[in-house]
């Protein structure tokens, strides 16, 4: 049963990811990305991490993707033609994009990883919250600082060009 669900989710994920990368219109890429995120959240759920799955939905799908959609709507005319997809562009991308993960997979297949779960049930929200505020207090604060900096930076970058007429 779980294998079946995982299979469906994998198909969903990779279909979405492929759409996100291969399709020529950015909007379609985004939809594909959203689809693959749903699949990914499902995979996290299969792994037993409800919280991470929900965060993937809430932040990646509800936050980042929506923001990307917003950016695309603000910046890309619908008729914009995507760059030509010539062999000299696809080939190196394919080479590196396949080569590097091939190396990784070869390495990890050669390695000896545990094959059975250590824990059936991953800890939930409460334990994660406690860990965030005790063991990982410092990185947690650092992340919040990073987010603050990112927000300020984003505002600053977006605002500066607003004052300038077409350059």
């Amino acid at each position, binding site marked *: 049963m779980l294998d079946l669900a995982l299979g469906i989710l994998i198909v969903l994920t990779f279909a979405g990811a492929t759409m996100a990368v291969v399709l020529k219109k950015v909007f379609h890429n985004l939809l594909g990305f959203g689809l693959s995120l749903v699949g990914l959240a499902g995979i996290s759920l299969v792994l037993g991490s*409800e919280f991470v799955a929900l965060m993937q*939905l*809430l932040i990646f*799908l509800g936050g980042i993707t*929506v923001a990307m*959609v917003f950016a695309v*709507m*603000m910046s890309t005319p*619908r008729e914009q033609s995507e760059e030509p997809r010539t062999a000299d562009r696809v080939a190196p991308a394919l080479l590196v994009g396949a080569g590097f993960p091939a190396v990784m997979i070869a390495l990890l297949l050669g390695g000896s990883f545990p094959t059975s779960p250590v824990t059936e049930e991953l800890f939930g929200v409460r334990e994660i919250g406690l860990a965030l505020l005790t063991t990982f207090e410092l990185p947690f604060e650092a992340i919040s600082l990073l987010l603050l900096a990112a927000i300020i930076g984003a505002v600053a970058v977006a605002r500066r060009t607003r004052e300038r007429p077409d350059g």
Partner: protein
Amino acid sequence: MSGLIDSVQGVLGGWLTELVIGFVLLAVLITLNAMFMVWFERKVAGWVQGRHGPLHHGPFGLAQTALDVVKLLGKEFIIPSKVDRPVFLLAPIIAFLPALAILSLIPYSADMTLTDAQSGLLIVFAFGGLSLGGIFMGGWSSNNKYALLGAIRAVSQNIAYELPLLLSAMAIVLMSGTLNLTEIVDAQAGYRWNVFFQPLAMLIFLISAAAETNRAPFDIPEAESELVAGFHTEYPAMGFAVFFLAEYTYMFAVCAIGAVLFLGGAAGPLLPGPVWLLLKVYFLLFLMVMARWTYPRLRFDQLMNLAWKYLIPLALGNLMLTAFVLKLVQT
């Protein structure tokens, strides 16, 4: 009836049967709710404006909406030539599905929940964010500038109001110490409804909810006087109907969550749980309808100011105050 259920159970196995039956029931609920709401809204509007509203078909014009649905079903489904077809067709469904998912999480009574998830509230918000997908897909794929403008407005509005919505709900999470909706209801047992302790949170929640569902006075994504009909301008017949369905379903879902969070969910004397829940939901829906016909539409900058300058700081302050008081009470 039970024989039917048994035979279905024989085919599908226990929890899947429950699921299927639950979704069938939900579908019925959604349809009835949408039809009722259209009528209800028109009636309230008539009452507010000193006129009658629908009258002619059925008692109090109750059959009016059903006839409208039949009419919409009979209309030709025109797809404009330059639209982004797959996206265009997918958009209404995407808009509708998350609302359905949310409804499946609501505890209709103490033991009547389709999925009793541990992080139920989080799932609600996660899916709540998804409902936006239908809107921007529709607005984008229509190849129409009004539709696109409506979509852009919807996106920025949703991003802005998601925060106060979450923050006000978090105050309740703090009070009950759980994300499970059933447990949140249990925490309010004995009529210790959260609305008495968190009136500000409820106010913020309702305002944000109205904005999230693009209801007036926050309906600028579909402001007809500016954008024709906003993101669903190009949608014909049933496409349009599904968007409407989705909007009313989403309203129902949000009000149900509101009732669960603030009004003690399905708890109430005498009457069975689901009835109480429905009463509370329709009370909240009544408030939203009243707001729609009472207040003028906000301008875009006013809308943004309200969220970023008032609601978010207020919700944050409320959250911090709650945490502080809770700590005091606990120690």
